[in-house]
């Protein structure tokens, strides 16, 4: 058992993981205070013959303390979260240099459309790969999620990114990978009987490898 998050591989991991550990520490303290308190009270104040409980109806001071302390703590957590949230999902959060991909999401496949050598999406040299997303490292990418049937959810645990793809809505999600390697993509929203197997892969290349891969790929596409 472990309360440590698995290693992250995107720029979001730092912020999200930090918030997670902050909350873990705060809730951990509250957890210990309450559980230990209950245990101590249960033992210390257990019924003994000839003893009577102390008649106490309450304490305004105590009420104020245990209203104010959680309220202040929670609002602070809320404000800390707000900044990170805006950075990740805010309306204008997508960096202008992000590489765009179109992702057609359907039961039970992720079809990633890449812009071809012309650097434009929606032109004839675009090509599509099933369940494979190739991206360069240290460069933001923007996925335009287009759901074709039901709601799916794009989830890459290592990148700490999750976004529902909703039919009829244009939803863009972005992230920036920081480690070269292969990571799993999962569908996180129940989408039917094949939901449990709606998986794909992200392959993060170094910048040079990515260029190489892209031109190989385009050459192959031309031959076909």
């Amino acid at each position, binding site marked *: 058992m472990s309360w440590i998050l698995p290693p992250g591989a995107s720029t979001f991991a730092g912020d999200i993981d930090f918030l997670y550990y902050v909350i873990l520490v705060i809730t951990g303290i509250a957890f210990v205070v309450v559980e230990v308190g209950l245990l101590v009270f249960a033992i210390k104040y257990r019924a003994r013959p000839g003893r009577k409980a102390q008649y106490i109806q309450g304490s305004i001071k105590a009420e104020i303390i245990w209203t104010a302390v959680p309220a202040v703590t929670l609002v602070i957590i809320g404000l800390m979260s707000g900044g990170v949230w805006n950075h990740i999902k805010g309306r204008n959060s997508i960096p202008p240099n992000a590489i765009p991909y179109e992702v057609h999401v359907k039961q*039970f496949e992720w*079809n990633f459309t890449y812009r071809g050598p012309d650097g434009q999406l929606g032109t004839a040299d675009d090509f599509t790969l*099933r*369940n494979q997303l190739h991206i360069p490292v240290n460069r933001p990418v923007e996925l335009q999620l287009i759901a074709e049937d039901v709601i799916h959810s794009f989830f890459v645990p290592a990148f700490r990114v999750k976004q529902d793809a909703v039919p009829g809505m244009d939803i863009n999600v972005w992230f920036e990978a920081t480690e070269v390697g292969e990571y799993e993509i999962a569908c996180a929203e129940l989408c039917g*009987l*094949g939901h449990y*197997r709606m998986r794909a892969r992200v392959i993060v290349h170094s910048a040079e490898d990515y260029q190489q891969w892209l031109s190989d790929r385009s050459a192959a596409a031309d031959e*076909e």
Partner: protein
Amino acid sequence: MRRFWVASCLFAFLACGGGDGDSGGSSGAAAAAPLGNSSITGVISFAGSVPTNPAIDMAEEPDCAVKHSDGPTDPIVVVTDGKLANVFIRIVGGLPDGPYPEPSEAAAIDQNGCLYSPRVVGVMVGQTLEITNSDPLLHNIKAVPTENRGFNISQPRAGMTSPRTFNTPEIMIPLECNVHGWMNAYVGVVEHSYFATSAVDGSFTIGGLPAGTYQVAVWHETLGTQSGDVTVEADGSATLNFTFGG
């Protein structure tokens, strides 16, 4: 509209599940003897330049990819030496009134290497279609008929078989797998058993017919339909060929 009736039933607290009563394979009429011994044979040809079938990106399904040594393609138009496979041939006119003899065996369709085999299959109304999975991974089978009741079932493991039947003639019922978007098959449901699918060499045979003149219709998933007439003698055989243009 049928959905509305299902709903209406429910209002009356009736679990009116298999309302169509489509469980039985036999329609009660005894498996009648063949009506005759005549047959129609023929060959489906393809003229012109053969379209290339698109390649399938099976990279993420290694268990299927290994079953295709020279790269999987989507077998939409299968032409070998000018002969066309996967054409569905059936008699549409000239038959005496039923009951018609029923095929003694179930029809079968297999999922192997993430492709359906055969891609085109015929069944008689009420005849069992056995759908099998030979791949060690999940396929779902979704039937989207217009006349029959549809279904959407899964086969998560190799070796699974699901029997299904259809109650109403329908040309053709598409089958699809949504795990593998390229997987398509077609089921022709006919009220009698006088149908066939063209083989790799384009050939087909429809046997067990009485003497008579028949209208024959043929169907291909992308090349369309054609029809023709043919007369057979008692205990004889007649030839009827079709050619699809390029």
